[in-house]
């Protein structure tokens, strides 16, 4: 072994020793400062690993976006870098101070916002859904009034013809995002609705005629895949039938 290699190994071993003795409580890339202090309940979570390389995306937003998280105890964190994994239903944050990516514990989150272009569609709230899949899910609040329009972004693996991913591994599925809409009635019942005129009207069997007329009058045709038409329609129905 030549001298250069010896020096290299010595440096490598020394740096390994250093990381082994340094405080076991924080990421070794940086030492903690008072910037880590907050009177809030600290954000807790588990390490997130970017594993799969299926085609499509497991995330609602592929790029990190700034957002706020409000915890169940009312504490608020602003300007966090967030991603929503709609496949595992995990809210992921990049902690810039320690350079770590973590899944924020679902049990502490009450709601969060993601600063996207569509300001009306960036609020997500954790709600319990008692039908399949039972449990707590993050719902995108598209409209909030006496009636609420919610969207559950659900990504699943869809079978396809085999292909090789970026790592050269053969795959036979890809990620497919499927938004599922719900209307929450004033009695807190959640009913699934499609972003179509027929599906919406069917929710109100006794008012079908009047709703049809109302939608026609207000030129809501559900032509675009944009959720704003559905939200507008819910708003109109609420004003017309649920104003008292």
């Amino acid at each position, binding site marked *: 072994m030549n001298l250069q290699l010896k020096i290299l190994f010595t440096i490598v071993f020394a740096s390994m020793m250093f990381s082994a003795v340094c*405080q076991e*409580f*924080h990421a070794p890339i940086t030492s903690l400062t008072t910037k880590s*202090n*907050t*009177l809030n309940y600290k954000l807790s979570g588990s*390490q997130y690993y970017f594993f799969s390389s299926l085609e499509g995306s497991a995330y609602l937003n592929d790029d990190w976006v700034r957002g706020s998280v409000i915890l169940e105890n009312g504490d608020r964190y602003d300007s966090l870098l967030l991603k929503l994994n709609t496949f595992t239903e995990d809210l992921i944050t990049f902690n810039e101070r320690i350079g770590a990516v973590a899944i924020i514990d679902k049990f502490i989150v009450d709601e969060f916002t993601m600063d996207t272009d569509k300001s009306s569609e960036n609020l997500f709230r954790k709600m319990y859904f008692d039908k399949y899949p039972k449990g707590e899910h993050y719902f995108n609040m598209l409209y909030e009034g006496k009636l609420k329009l919610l969207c559950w972004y659900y990504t699943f693996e869809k079978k396809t013809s085999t292909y090789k991913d970026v790592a050269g591994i053969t795959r036979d599925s890809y990620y497919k995002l499927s938004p599922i809409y719900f209307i929450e009635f004033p009695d807190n019942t959640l009913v699934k609705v499609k972003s179509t005129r027929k599906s919406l009207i069917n929710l109100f069997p006794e008012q079908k005629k009047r709703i049809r007329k109302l939608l026609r009058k207000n030129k809501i045709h559900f032509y675009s895949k944009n959720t704003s038409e559905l939200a507008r329609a819910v708003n109109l129905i609420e004003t017309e039938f649920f104003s008292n």
Partner: protein
Amino acid sequence: MTCLIFGKEDLKVTRMNRRKINIVPYVILFILILFVNGKMRAQEIIHLFPDRSFAVSGDTVWFSIFIYSDDSNETSEVVHVQLDDLANNHVSKVSILCSGKTGEGYIHIPDSLSTGIYVLKPFSLVQKISGKGVINQKLITVYNRFDNETGVIEEPDGIKLKRYDINKEVVITTGKEQYEKGENVNVEIRIPGTGIDQYKKVFAFAGLADPFSQRFLSGWIPSSTIAKTENPVMLTEKNGILISGKVVSNETDVPVANAIVLLSIPDTIPFFDYCISDSAGEFYFYLRNATGVANLVIQALSQNEEKCKIKLSYSFIEVGSIPATQKILTLEETTFIGNIIKASYYSKLFKGYKIGTPDNFMLPMQFKYPFYGPPTKTYYPDLFVDLPDFREISREILHGVQYRERKGGTTIRLQNQSISALFSQEPLRLLDGIPVFDNKIFAPMGTNDIKKVDVVFYKRFYGDLTFNGVLSVYTKNKSLDWVDLKPGIGHFEYSCLQLAKRFEFMNGRVPDTHVPNLNKVLFRTTVKEIKSQIDFNFFTSDIKGDVEINVILIDKNNHISYAHKFIDVK
């Protein structure tokens, strides 16, 4: 040439204009200063109304609190009440959670407290930090129950009590002026019809009148804080208390900056928090809704692994001491003192003496899981065969936990289930919720000692802290003896918010005629509904003397007035 055109009058006008112009910036500056001062003066005012002006050592003094500030949104809701002697020596302190700008609480007068005048000081953290608050101090005389020959007492000298205004509109009437021992007293408070709307708070209390200290009830001593307290964080306490302290080097006593200070409170679901010390070594924690006396375990990890110690600050407020001179008591005063000390003796003889135990600690959990999240696995070693030590337990029961005892020391590694490998570094090890850095502590623990073991087989984050898995051992006896034996770990008993107890009191008739009724306070209440006529009743006790009925009224402009009436108990 222009001056030739102007006459004398014109010249005057020009000068005046110039003066006006010159004055404008000063006027603006003056207004600005006034505005800024006004903003800064939006300070909190706290008044304390004890239910008595005197106490015998061992008694409990109850009080009402009224707090307000110009900025009502930012008014503190936690008021600290401190008992000091006249020389400013601190005796005790309680922290009261207020609601709707009022609060009620109590403070125990230590049994060993010597006879003298003491000061109750209500303050908020904002007042303490800003150093600009005026502390409205109330005086209370304490008579030591073993001190039978009190003839002289130190009383404030040269300081005049500020008095609440006497409210002449409010009339207190009782059926008669003289009462027998144990007789019912019906009290009627009449507030004129026009005045009802103007009052927002009314407190009423009645009790024996001490000829020496009765004047303390209707007056207070305002005093400024001596110095601004350097606090690492500015906070308005709304639902909890701020715990602060300093990390210093064990050897040199020099403040240690950027140390990770860990706070743990052992409980069924343990509380854990951390703070990074600032350049002055200071740290802080905010404990929300914690009531009772907490067992705080605080340890600090410095960047360079230097041994540290924790100095906790107990958050007393410092105000100027009250100068005092000796006063020789009159015969009436000494007789009264003798009577109430005797009454206290007989009361303890008949009712027994209960040593005040601190309130049990309660900390409502904010979330359903501990800070380390839902455990991946929970083991109950007790359900398995008897195993003598932790090595055996880890081998036989704790799958995924690698516990190695070697000559160089004991190591623990957990499985990382995310990547199906062992973590290369030690996990967070907790013993009854307290972080442990010496694995040897687990070594002697057998199945009979351990209640349960929570294990998290994932890398966890708590704020900016990272844990390579979590191993949390809960023992059966939950003793903190090991904490006191470990150097570098601070174990502190810290009073959090006082547990709310029923404030309202009415001295009733004692059913057993052989047991004397020796209560000194006969009635206290915060009037819930302010009406033109407020009625209440109480029974006189078996102690003869004057009884004073007091009514404190706070109007919508936060002006305090009071009305009172004496009755005679023969």
